[in-house]
């Protein structure tokens, strides 16, 4: 994937660029708003990581608004130290697809960027999702593995659906809280782990090949190969 990062802090930018390259992405970096806008508008990217407060007269919000005004729909993840709820709302209203506050864990950023780029591709009217021999029907809300019917609670179904939509990608606990439960804060209790392990009991336990993997220090991933 081709990713643009617009970030003025050299250390943060260097760290993110390195991490993204290690994860197999092509990365361009701009350290101010004007260069960022120029790059974003003139070249094609799969995703943009955007700081809010930038030097060069154009801040992150302006940059994104300008971009969206030109009908550019590249997915954008805000990466900002502005952490209040209003800031988040402003960022999403300006056309941002996700909002991550600093300080952040790189695994979280990587997972969110990869999730975004995938979202853009599979948002068609799919009615069936498959990973290996596991398949779910979004219309009848039925789940089958190796032809065997599996009964899931409504919330478990939504959890599985979210994981399947992001199959092959790391999904963090925060992403699950936001995407499945619509919670925008982290409870102290390991609620997500418990729910995932319940789901695992139902979809993995009776079968030979595990599909739902735990990714250390990051989250979970649904895929046929081992992590």
């Amino acid at each position, binding site marked *: 994937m081709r990713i643009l990062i617009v970030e003025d802090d050299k250390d943060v930018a260097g760290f993110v660029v390195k991490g993204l390259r290690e994860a197999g992405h092509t990365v361009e970096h701009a350290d101010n708003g004007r260069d960022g806008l120029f790059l974003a508008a003139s070249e094609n990217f799969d995703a943009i990581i955007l700081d809010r407060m930038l030097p060069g007269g154009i801040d992150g919000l302006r940059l994104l608004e300008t971009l969206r005004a030109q009908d550019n729909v590249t997915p954008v993840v805000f990466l900002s130290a502005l*952490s209040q709820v209003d800031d988040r709302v402003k960022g999403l209203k300006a056309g941002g697809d996700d909002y991550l506050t600093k300080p952040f864990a790189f695994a979280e950023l990587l997972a969110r960027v990869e999730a975004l780029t995938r979202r853009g591709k599979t948002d068609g009217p799919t009615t069936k999702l498959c990973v290996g021999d596991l398949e779910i029907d979004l219309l009848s809300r039925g789940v089958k593995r190796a032809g065997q019917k599996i009964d899931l609670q409504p*919330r478990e179904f939504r959890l599985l659906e979210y994981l399947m939509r992001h199959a092959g990608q790391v999904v963090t606990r925060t992403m699950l809280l936001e995407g499945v*439960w619509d919670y*925008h*804060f982290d*409870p102290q209790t390991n609620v997500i782990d418990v729910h995932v392990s*319940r789901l695992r009991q139902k979809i993995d336990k009776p079968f030979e090949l595990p599909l739902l993997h735990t990714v250390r220090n990051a989250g979970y991933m649904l895929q046929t190969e081992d992590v």
Partner: protein
Amino acid sequence: MLHAEQRGQPELIGTARPKRRARPIIRSAGIRLALVYATVFGVSAFALAFSLWYSTVGLLQRQVEVAVRNDASALGDHFAIGGIPSLVMAIRNRLSNNIDGDAIYLLIDPLGNRVIGNLDRWPVGLTEANAWYELPVTRQGVGSIALLRAYPIIGGDQLLVGRDVRARTELRRVLQDGLLWAMGIMAVLGLLGALVIRSLFRRMIRDISSTTRAISRGDLTRRVPKTGDGDEFDELAEIINDMLDRITKLMDGVREVSNSIAHDLRTPITRARTRLEDASLHASTPDDLKAAIERATNDLDGIVAVFQALLRIAEIEAGARRSAFSSFDLAPLLLDIDELYRVVAEERGIKLLTSIAGMLPFFGDRQLVQQAVTNLLDNALKFSPADGDISFTATVENAVIEITIADRGSGISEEDRQRATERFFRAESARSTAGSGLGLSLVSAVAQLHNGTLRLTDNNPGLRAIISLPTRQVD
């Protein structure tokens, strides 16, 4: 931005002052108020005096006119029945019986000679018949004033009927003088009243402005003095004082937080720093180094979480979140939370006894209530012994929603309960568990934002936390 503000301020004061001096008198609210008072007072006093004068004097005048008319028409009847002799008889009777001492009659023949009457001669100036005249007359050699009307009689005679109104004229003059004096006194009183109002106004404003000026200079202990009358100014003073109390409380909060940050964040920061330094000095294998760095990163994440919670509480206490308020039903939200935590409780062998009312109409911030309730459940789960029940109930009664979460853990002692909602406060018994000491502060802040309360009581054993929220906000 801060710099610009700091630079801007003195300039503002510098330009505002000369303007205040050059302000025209009418720009003073005190004088304007006083003028309005004087005008209203004067106009109403004038209206009162005028209506008094008009009704008294006018009534007297009309009474005299009616008496004269009646008299004349009675005499006319006499004339109609018996001609001039009957008329003369009637007049003579009236004069000799002295029915009305003020009555005036004069009958003259066509040549102008007096036939009968108590006037010596036809008054000068009375030229037209059937019209009212107020003229000086002479009665038995004494000068007076009379209201007169002449009636022509068939045959050329003329009858003059009237009333002596000297007493009434004098009464009118006395009334007029009295009213004029009263007007004068009213004007003086009005002016005095205006002056009193102005000075009252000024005094109140002075109290308020001197207090607020002192506060803007940084003396937050000052309060607007109250007169104790319970009047509007008192009310205003109270409102301002309430506002100042709130500001003081917020300032204290800020101070408290900065103190807490200094104390309570120093510990985890020290821990992270020690780990890193220790690793750089003593780690012998890359794996040791990696592990130490990972632990230090976790410590830092913990510090960030504390910061996040602090900022969130500050944001809530500042009331900034009111803009995100909306109307919604709390019941499904609480059921969602129940569903989220039920499995965790089961995992730990704890029974979650949930009972949520069917409908909990509410106006507020969805996310914050969510977070407050999950904080309480986090706590309950953290302190519950295995196989101890947790009860999670929500009821609505008298427009107050009560969300209760009670556990069977060690609870909080009586004196610690008072302080449990303070930032960073951790009861002695909780020191060994993980946590920042901010959970209950946040719950309390959320309850207050919604004009509600958080109460902590004993569950014998354990803790019972009750959030009371009004279904509707009262401003």
